[in-house]
């Protein structure tokens, strides 16, 4: 455990020593902020129109009009941005040769992997925490159904862990960070559009494709529902990604 903490601290330090986290946090907040502005504007206009119609007003709630679209957009942004956070994790150590020294210390491969996973999550967590400003703003000017907001964030966390585990795996495959990121993009987008392939097929194939697709496992979180099938999906995806990372690290027959 002490090793996990040591590696976590060093990795987190490395994230904040490079510009990547600052640049990414800025872009992430700009984009989510723009979406937030647009959805809140739409919400305000709808509220204005509904002002004279008490019946219509009952259909207006912030969960449906503001948060669900925002969460849906954040998923897409994450599919594109998370590979940029994970690409350096092992590729950089291989390129610099530091992996050789790191693995000569008495640390288990699992400690290294866990420390790195937690570090990349902490770096992302910071960006996520900054977005708490959006629901806080709505709460200040109107009412917020907190349940769906909390489960929506849990969905983001679950998606993040799965993307990080796989991104880390891709980072062990190459010493070129760009290649690691590209595989990450390809994988994330492919996993996303599997759902459309599922729609175009029939029978068992369709069911399997739909289950494997990320798409089918996001919606319920934003609706305030914690479905076991979705939870299992992310736990399995994360575990498999970490397992593959561990196996490649263990194989280690690298021509450094």
């Amino acid at each position, binding site marked *: 455990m*002490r*090793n996990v*903490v*040591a*590696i976590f*601290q*060093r990795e987190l*330090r*490395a994230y904040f*020593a*490079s510009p990547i986290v600052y640049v990414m946090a800025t872009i992430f907040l700009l984009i989510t902020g723009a979406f937030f502005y647009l959805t809140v504007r739409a919400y305000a206009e709808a509220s204005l129109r509904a002002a004279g119609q008490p019946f219509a007003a009952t259909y207006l709630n912030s969960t449906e009009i503001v948060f669900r679209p925002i969460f849906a957009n954040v998923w897409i942004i994450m599919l594109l941005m998370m590979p940029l956070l994970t690409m350096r994790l092992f590729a950089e150590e291989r390129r*610099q*040769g*530091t992996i*050789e*020294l*790191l*693995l*000569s*210390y*008495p*640390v*288990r491969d699992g400690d290294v992997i866990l420390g790195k996973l937690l570090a990349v999550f902490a770096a992302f967590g910071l960006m996520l925490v900054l977005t708490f400003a959006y629901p806080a703003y709505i709460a200040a000017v109107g009412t917020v159904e907190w349940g769906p907001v909390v489960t929506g964030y849990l969905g983001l966390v679950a998606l993040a862990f799965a993307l990080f585990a796989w991104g880390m795996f891709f980072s062990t495959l190459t010493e070129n960070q760009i290649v690691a990121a590209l595989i990450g993009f390809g994988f994330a987008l492919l996993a996303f559009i599997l759902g459309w392939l599922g729609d175009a097929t029939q029978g068992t194939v369709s069911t399997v494709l739909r289950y494997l697709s990320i798409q089918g496992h996001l919606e319920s979180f934003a609706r305030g529902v914690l479905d076991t099938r979705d939870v299992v999906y992310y736990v399995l995806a994360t575990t498999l990604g970490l397992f593959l990372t561990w196996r490649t690290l263990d194989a*280690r*027959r*690298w*021509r*450094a």
Partner: protein
Amino acid sequence: MIQVEGLTKRYGRISAIEGLSFSVEKGEIVGFLGLNGAGKTTTMRILTGFIPPTRGRASIAGHDVVTASLEARRHVGYLPESAPLYTDMPVRAYLDFVGKVKGVAGSERPGKIDAVLSACGIAHVADRQIGRLSKGYRQRVGLAQALLGDPDVLVLDEPTSGLDPAQIREIRELIRHLAGTRTVILSTHILPEVEMICSRVLIVHRGRLLADGRPDTIGREQGLGGDVTVAAAAPADTLAAVLADLVAPGDPRPPADRGVTVLPAAPGEDGAVARLRVAQRVGTDLRPEIARAVVSRGWPLLELHGAAATLESVFISLVTKDGGPHAEDDAPEPVADAARAEGTGAPADPAAEPAGKE
């Protein structure tokens, strides 16, 4: 302290090391000598648990590097070639991280870090970022991290490569000074380095162990007598052929393969002077015959002196006997850093060697 038995590492069909066996006792400073690609780095990477061997076994302080890897790694301080450190960290923060993963207790850590900082002479740059340090200082930080946690065994891969002559001297002094009771295995292709630092030398070539002994006696053990240096006003090629016939009469090979090396002319000598070195077999002294052979041909004999076989002549003789330095199946050694500096790797200028006896 280090046991290696039949160690073999293959990359596909290429063999990086083949059946390597040796053992190192506590307190020895062993020089691992070989050309680039001889298998030095591969062996060290196996010893430090970075790569597993294809066959054979290696253990550190009684712990197998594969089956008890974690325990073996606790006893090793490693400095890989070109010192790959986290360049984005300040020295002290970096050493604090290394101390943590090496299991140095929190209360002892600051003291131990200060100790290695001052032992390596880098206390005054403790708060500087590693990436901003000179190569020599980075190498010292590399040594400091290897020393942290008081390992019994230090594995140093080309610790002086890429440094300038002043830095090389400092690092050598440091290694000699730090060794103390530790067991040290260091790789190099700089021959005088081994003579200066090491109590024992292992010569590896194309993945196999060719010789094992003390730097000053390994020549005799390998059947090599002293070297004789001859300077005469004569055509170099003709003189070489004459001398080669004295060393190995009737041998059809060219003089270079019979232990006769043409040396560069000394400063101030013009092209008319040939300077050669003759490697003799153990127990022979060819000086009288050489003098007679030169003089009888009417060439003025300018110099003639003998010395014990240098490590260089031992090395060259072993390596050439084994099929030359650039055999086709020479296993490429995986190199972490392309910036492997060769500038300081040249063997010592033989003309600068002490004249020895006579």
